[in-house]
């Protein structure tokens, strides 16, 4: 699938059938070997209180799923705001890789390249 960044390859392995679910799937066993890219997670203002005020976090992850798994380990309070207890990205949150919503890519199995910016944003919803 072509993206604005042009460098992302999409997994051909079926992903968890719940949109945004980061519960490990069979595909997790087959990550290609190689250096894991360092990416930046942009933290929205309301969530910075859960990660010591950090606006950005630098982590190593080759997919959005592994980025969220890293957050679960390293920033548990922040993670609970992003994913519910089933491991699904909360319904009214959007996760972008650079300028693309992962819903339009490969969900949480969207691959990441060095320097990518993952942005977590509340959806425009509510009243």
């Amino acid at each position: 699938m072509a993206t604005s960044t042009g460098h992302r390859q999409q997994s051909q392995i079926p992903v968890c059938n719940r949109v945004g679910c980061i519960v490990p799937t069979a595909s997790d066993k087959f990550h290609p070997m190689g250096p894991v890219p360092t990416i930046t997670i942009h933290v929205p203002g309301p969530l910075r209180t859960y990660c010591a005020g950090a606006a950005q976090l630098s982590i190593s992850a080759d997919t959005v799923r592994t980025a969220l798994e890293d957050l679960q380990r390293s920033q548990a309070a922040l993670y609970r705001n992003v994913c519910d207890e089933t491991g699904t990205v909360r319904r009214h949150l959007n996760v972008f890789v650079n300028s693309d919503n992962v819903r339009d890519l490969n969900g949480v199995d969207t691959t990441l390249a060095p320097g990518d910016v993952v942005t977590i944003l509340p959806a425009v919803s509510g009243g």
Partner: protein
Amino acid sequence: MVDRIILTIGTKKGLFVADAAKPRRSFALRGPFGPGIPVYSTLIDTRGTPCLYASSCNPFFGMKVLRSTDMGKSFTETKSAPAFPKDDGRALVNIWGLEAGGGKKDLWCGVEPASLFRSHDGGDSWDLVPGISNHDHARKWQPGNGGLCMHTIIRDGNRVHLGISTGGHYLSEDGGETFRASNQGVGAGFAPDPYPEFGQCVHKIARHDDAPGRLYMQNHGGWADWTGPGGPRPDIGVLRSDDYGHSWRSIAKGLPSDFGFPIVVHPYDADTVYVMPLDATRSCPGGAPAVWRSENGGESWSRLARGLPRKQSYFTVLRDAMDIDRLKAPALYFGTTTGQLWIGREGGEQWDCLFDSLPPIYNVKVAVA
């Protein structure tokens, strides 16, 4: 310290706290706390040093429990909110009920999807109560219009009464270890069987310490004209039990409508009970709001509307948006979906609007602390 009347007001846009000296002449308002985030449940815990709790139901970032130890001047998040075990498959949608438990720091919490949690440390950690949360019926309950919520938790010694919409009334007689559906006489208007074992849309349940075994229920009424299978179901909306909730009977005769959400008992008279009848559109009948009071346990009802609007008022009063204080001449309080907070002095004889432009109100609790 001089006792004050303290009100917690959960709204669509955060929590407000109001307090007043005992004559209740004027209330000072603070907030919003957790601004912009809906608050469906609050608790004023007067055991020991008063502590205020509120759920903060963030549709974006999930549920939080807020706690105040300074009488509502400031709130902080507890260390965690209720959460289902990872392998359960359910995810918390909302927090509908917070109640004090037996121990000094014990709390009970009813949530959506309908389940029960307990905390032994003032809300910093929570455990699922499996006897009801994993009940054989739990995966068969269906959400009502407000969601599949456990909204009522009543503790009475070893008995625990739960109200679930739509699940019905569940009773434990072993301190919450096991529960069974206890809905004999509780009707349902939205199913072919008018009296199913479970699945009723219970709106609220209330009890009084001085009347052992007595319970009052506001059920989902409004089915008098139903013409489908099972026939009409008049008067199933307001009910009473005299056997600890094992069976229920209608006390709706004399009300303008048996539909409504809250039901409240007078603090010093178990025979005096208050409801807020609404019509089929969930608004005040004829555009003229009124609280209705029975002083004989539901045998007859009288209308309390002095000071309330006489026309053109079509608000809703939700299930947890009415309460009564415990002063010598108790005052009722209710909040509306149009953001008004009303006080009914002298047990509802005279109504005044305390605040008229709050966000839509979901929850009102009052205590003397």
